């Protein structure tokens, strides 16, 4: 028997036991088997695609879908179309920007829409300030490319300031130019 992906003999016969339509048997050569087995337990692309397909059957019309596909995140520039095809988002802000489109998807995948469990001990940045930091970083790279080092260093300072503000367990006005953003101790006296 030949491998189902190439001409080599199939020496591995793998059974996926949790496919929705019952067990699926695959016949693979050593190399393809290794690639296949070393992927994550659940193939994210497949499950995103599956969940999206289900979701699209439920609601949207073709015109609505086309419109949605063109929607682009202002921070990372990813379109919904690209997300749909790759199963991967472009930046943390996508969860806010595409929120209403993602909720049905999350429901489909997880049967839930709200996180329960661990949270970072220090203050999490708001979605907006996370987006702002990503934008600033991009601007900084552009400034460096244009050899506008003054502008680049201004942006770097602003980024540092934002990050160091977030390093505090609670918001507190500290002097600008706080240097120790990497080693800020976990404050215990305020939360």
């Amino acid at each position, binding site marked *: 028997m030949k491998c189902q992906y190439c001409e080599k003999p199939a020496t591995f016969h793998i059974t996926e036991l949790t496919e929705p339509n019952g067990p699926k048997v695959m016949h693979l050569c050593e190399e393809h088997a290794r690639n296949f087995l070393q992927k994550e337990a659940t193939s*994210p*692309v497949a499950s995103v695609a599956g969940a999206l397909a289900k979701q699209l059957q439920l609601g949207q019309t073709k015109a609505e879908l086309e419109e949605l596909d063109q929607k682009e995140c202002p921070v990372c520039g990813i379109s919904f179309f690209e997300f749909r095809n790759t199963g991967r988002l472009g930046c943390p802000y996508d969860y806010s920007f595409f929120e209403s489109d993602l909720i049905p998807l999350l429901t489909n995948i997880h049967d839930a829409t709200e996180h329960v*469990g661990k949270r970072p001990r220090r203050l999490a940045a708001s979605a907006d300030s996370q987006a702002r930091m990503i934008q600033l970083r991009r601007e900084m790279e552009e400034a460096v490319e244009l050899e506008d080092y003054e502008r680049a260093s201004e942006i770097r300072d602003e980024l540092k300031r934002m990050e160091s503000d977030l390093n505090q367990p609670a918001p507190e006005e500290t002097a600008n130019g706080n240097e120790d953003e990497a080693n800020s101790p976990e404050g215990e006296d305020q939360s």
Partner: protein
Amino acid sequence: MNQETDFNALARNSGEWLRGTGPESDIVISSRIRLARNLADFPFIRRCSDEDRDSIERTVRARMEAIEDWNDIRYIDIEELSEIDRQFLVERQLISREIADADGSRAVAMDPGEQYSVMINEEDHLRIQVMQSGLDLDAAWARIDSLDDQLEGSILYAFHEKYGYLTACPTNVGTGLRVSVMLHLPALVITRQIEKVFRSMQRINVTVRGLYGEGSQYSGDFYQVSNQVTLGHSEKALLSLVGDEVVPQIIQYERKARAFLVEQNQQDLHDDVSRALGILSTAKKISSEETMHYLSKVRMGVNLGLIDDVELATINKLFIHTQPAHLQKLHGRMLGSSDRNVQRASYLQRHLHGEQGEGEFN
């Protein structure tokens, strides 16, 4: 530090998680937990520029090096590795196939005992993983939780009040946690009950995957059980689902099936596992599939007390060390598939013979 020397040393040893000593280690090979994390101030990997990737790697590395508890960490630049060294780390389960095959800045940091590793610039900026021998999810969780806390002390994670830890793929969002327990279930395969067992578990939010499924001539009889969802359940609840509900039940079925086999026909079973050991320790050429198949039988034989002069840790180690990149590292050069079969046979022979009478090897 010289990466080459490092790798050769690594190839001769094996990870702590293979030592075959944790709870239920006759059936459970290993417990693995991984957490997906992203930095708040960078786009996800797909949208990262080369500068972004470099910058993430540098930032994370500097911050890991500043963590005092992590002094003995080994940091490996995957971009600089040869194909075979990448494959070696994949076989070793220290990195994913995905990060091995990717392009651009990417790295892995690991402890000398190979109990944890942190992949940088995989599908998410950070993939933290902890491996533990046997079924020991509480220990694995305590460890990964603390690693995560230490990283979070100096790295700002992408986190959303409602959706939790944000990940590139929505299938990981929330806890970002995937727990995978690797099980060895030869008796359920022999008694043809395996599909029935897993079918009964399909509706309870776990993914089960047969690594070398029945119906194949050569089978290692390994199955991996993982949580399917990551959002809407706490880490503890997800661990408990896999570790307290699903896996113990499978273990119980496997034990029953083993007892049944022993009771039904101990002589046949004894003959079968002894022949398997015979082939492994005398063959002159052997493929990796055949090796898996016979090692699986020998492993069961050891666990049932039918083979008493081979250590479980040896068998666990042989599963990993007879894979292609390991053989080539041990041999010190590239080998074609037919040369590998010869080397594999000789490696097995050395280790299985050395074992008899001595009980220990390295």
